[in-house]
């Protein structure tokens, strides 16, 4: 007969850690800890840069795949959709191999820099932005095509019309990309190395504190990260409401 024993003591410790986590988060925020601000600043800088670059690539790519029908287009769409599920550690490993001294881009000395982290996150976010953009614009093209064909709109004019009219839906796509970037730890850990004051971001700091057994601080950092994401999403919603 098997007896299942619940780890009661551990659960109580966990609850203590949870309470302490909130306390740590509050104290980190109230004290405006300079280390925390520097980590937060780098996190936002890396993730927002990656999302910005991903949008520059992903929006036109999505528009292109939504508008043009050519042999292999469906295959490309399937590949792009699949890439949305890219494991961050795999992307981290590939970028690591490309940027390491023996790799093809080793001469640039980018490994363990914020630039390497931006490259890794861009690779993770671009398929999300591209695939979701394609789906949104394809639906819109279905609605607008007769009007645009009727006026003999050029390809560029048609794509510009679709992108502009889908702007509010695309803002949600952008937020999905930002969510992926800011919450990701595997890739930035591998290519950034979690170097204090150089490449340490919120997620790598949380991983470090967890591995040190400092769970309450790790949780505190996690709560700060959640609040940051919440603020970014709230700002986006405000902008959307104002201009919609």
């Amino acid at each position, binding site marked *: 007969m098997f007896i299942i024993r619940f780890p009661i003591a551990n659960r109580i410790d966990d609850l203590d850690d949870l309470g302490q986590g909130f306390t740590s988060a509050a104290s980190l925020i109230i004290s405006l800890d300079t280390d925390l601000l520097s980590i937060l600043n780098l996190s936002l800088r890396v993730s927002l840069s990656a999302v910005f670059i991903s949008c520059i690539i992903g929006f036109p790519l999505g528009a292109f795949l939504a508008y043009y029908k050519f042999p292999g287009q469906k295959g490309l769409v399937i590949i792009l959709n699949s890439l949305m599920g890219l494991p961050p550690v795999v992307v981290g490993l590939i970028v690591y191999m490309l940027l390491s001294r023996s790799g093809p881009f080793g001469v640039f000395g980018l490994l363990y820099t914020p630039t390497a982290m931006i490259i890794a996150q861009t690779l993770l976010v671009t398929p999300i932005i591209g695939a979701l953009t394609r789906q949104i614009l394809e639906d819109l093209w279905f609605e607008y095509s*007769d009007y645009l*064909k*009727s006026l*003999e709109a050029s390809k560029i*004019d048609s794509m510009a019309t679709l992108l502009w*009219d889908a702007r509010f839906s695309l803002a949600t796509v952008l937020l999905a990309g930002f969510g992926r970037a800011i919450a990701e730890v595997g890739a930035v850990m591998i290519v950034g190395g979690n170097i204090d004051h150089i490449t340490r971001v919120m997620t790598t700091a949380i991983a470090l504190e967890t591995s040190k057994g400092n769970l309450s601080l790790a949780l505190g950092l996690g709560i700060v990260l959640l609040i940051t994401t919440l603020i970014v999403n709230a700002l986006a919603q405000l902008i959307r409401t104002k201009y919609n």
Partner: protein
Amino acid sequence: MKTNNKILPLEVSKLNYEVNGHKLIENLNFRLEAGQITVFLGPNGAGKSLTLKLCHGILKPSSGDIIWNTDLSNKSTTNKQFHTMVFQKPILLRRSVRANIEHTLKLCKIPRNTREDILEKALAKTGLNEISNLPAKSISGGEQQKLAMARAWALSPKVLFLDEPTTNLDPSSTIAIENLIEEFHKAGTKIIMTTHDLRQAQRLSNEILFFHRGKLLEQTDSDTFFSNPKTQAGRAFIKGELFW
């Protein structure tokens, strides 16, 4: 708005349109002259809207010819400068009423310095001044169709295709749209419209083209068609006994 109908007559010969081997339009031959309001009449699925879209150029025929009096293949002129189309369900952009008309003018390369004047006249003609800054998607169905007519008015087309423009509208909105159609007609625009509403066809048309199952069965003046249709299907349609 005063137009000079040099692009008419429109000569359609041996026109066929098929999808996946199914003949939807079969061997159409007709000629449309300037000056009259021509109505394509017939039950649902008769091929009226397809014929309209083929003539407008949104669809490419499987075989046959659609020949305008003016050579529209000339690079210096394009179809949109000559004929435009209003759809059964207005296709409106996710922008304000005003911005919808602006977009049409911009796509049609109307000089920037004249756009504002044309826009104001189109708004005044359709009575949309008061709601010009509202989002187009938020206005009523009748107003949305008026906006589609305003966009057409702004282009001063020589031929206006109307695909069942009042199907989803209440009686007062229907009258408003019919009045606008009369205004276009008075301004010299050739009206080619589809409807399955017999009373509307009687009110507006000078000429009837009666379609059934993808074929043109009759082309005659309106009075003759309604008093003495030549075909069995035409007689049945007038009596309300013709079904697909």
